[in-house]
């Protein structure tokens, strides 16, 4: 992949991590929650999710300035890993909390089960696909270079 194309992707992903990260921090500090379409700025420990998202955004963006090919890519992988920690755990918690029932029943009703999977979700969830694609691209490229 050309450096220019890669840098363009980094800026795109970086900005889409940085902005919701800042918003999450702002909403925590002002004590407000906010839902925009399917994206929810709320929930326990939003402050820390904001910190992680913001940092990953910064890592994507500053990776643009690295001249070393490997360093640039490693930093992008690190940022993607951080998004995956936050987003992945959110998915796990949605899955696990959809199973038990309440009010005298052991398991959730079918309807309750499925309704757990309709949004809105935290911003990190929406960043999962693109960060995964980025990581796959990077490692695929490395494998190709090794021959």
């Amino acid at each position: 992949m050309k450096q220019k194309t890669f840098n363009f992707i980094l800026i795109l992903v970086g900005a889409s991590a940085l902005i919701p990260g800042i918003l999450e921090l702002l909403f925590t500090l002002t004590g407000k929650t906010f839902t925009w379409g399917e994206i929810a700025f709320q929930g326990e420990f939003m402050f820390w999710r904001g910190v992680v998202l913001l940092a990953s955004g910064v890592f994507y963006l500053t990776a643009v300035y690295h001249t070393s090919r490997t360093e640039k890519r490693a930093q992008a992988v690190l940022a993607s890993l951080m998004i995956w920690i936050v987003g992945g755990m959110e998915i796990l918690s949605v899955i696990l909390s959809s199973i038990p029932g309440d009010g005298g029943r052991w398991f959730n009703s079918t309807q309750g089960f499925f309704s757990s999977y309709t949004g809105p979700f935290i911003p990190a969830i929406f960043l999962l696909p693109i960060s995964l694609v980025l990581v796959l691209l990077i490692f695929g490229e490395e494998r190709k270079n090794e021959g």
Partner: protein
Amino acid sequence: MKLEPEERWRLIDRVARETVQYGAEKTTIKSTLAELTVKPFTGIPFAIAILYGFWAFFNAFAGFFTDGFFVPLFDDLWLPWIQEAFPLEGSWFYYILVGDPAATNSFEAFGILTSGLFVAVGVVLPAIVAFYLVITVLEDSGYMPRLAVLVDTVLHKIGLHGFAVVPMILSLGCNVPGVASTRTLETKKQRFMMMILLSIFIPCGAQLGVMLSLIPEYFGYIMLYLLAGFFVFGWILNKVVPGSSPEIMTDVPPFRIPTISNVSRKLWVKVKGFFTNAIPFVLLGVGLVNILYLVGAIDWLSNILGPVFTGWFGIPKETVAPLIAGFLRKDLAVAQLSAIEMSGFQLITSVVIISIYFPCIATFSMIIKEGRNSGGVLKVLGGSLLTLVTVVFLWGGLLHLIGMILGVT
């Protein structure tokens, strides 16, 4: 025949030149990634992400088992059944085993078969499984020593030297191996210092788990205050205790993907250990406290210690009973505290006191065992007790003072 070290190195040099070829070391993405995790600029945010992931996993996993299944199981089925079915209601026997016949949840019944079983199986078991699962994965991936190096770098930057971070991180799993690992420290001073600091200020995995499960809203404050104490008293001990504390080097292993077999084997060892060592102690702890209640010892102690508790620490005198249980298991003590009626700040204070007032029995016996190698048992025990009493009164009292200043007591 023995060689001098220089001679030995000279020969090895020759052998190596003859047999080992170092190709140009490729900097791979993986190895660069590994470096990024120890550099503060990238490493600290990554560590925050890891800790967040830890918390989130813990919440999801322990919440699933404890709130999802064990709470309804114990509260709706087991408790009413045993309250009804157990004979001799009103006798001391019933009181010790079942506890309060009118209790509506397993926390407040206080019997061995009610609260004891519930805390051991329903709360602590899921907590430690979740906890050790994450710890093991982090350990096997090679992230833990990196975290140690990162913490070490940060500590040096803020002027704190001589802390052994590896034993500290091991202690978060359980204080016993943490204390044992101080054996790898070079000087008696370091061993003595770390042994005391670890056993006083670092809560173990089981305690962390129960705190996260039962009082998550206070978890951050409690940890912050304990870690602050760790460093404040570490700094003081470093000045006061004679001897030297040289820099500690840690080897950083490469990143590896943890194998399922090793992770599950380790987890199994821990869980097995929990069933054989911890559960009996939790049940014993509940039984002991109930017996002491029955013979009036708790009331007697509460009345004697009451003024100190309410006056100096600002916590209700009912906390005496959990404090006694804490000798056996800190996780049990925290669970009992959470069932006592008191303000949030009092709960924070009493959990802090529970953590620092004395190491649990298992850790204490390990300190005695290791003390032999660290300047003699008497010296170590004497020093520990002196530090302990100072810490409990100063650090515990200070928290009360902070509460008064903030106006939350």
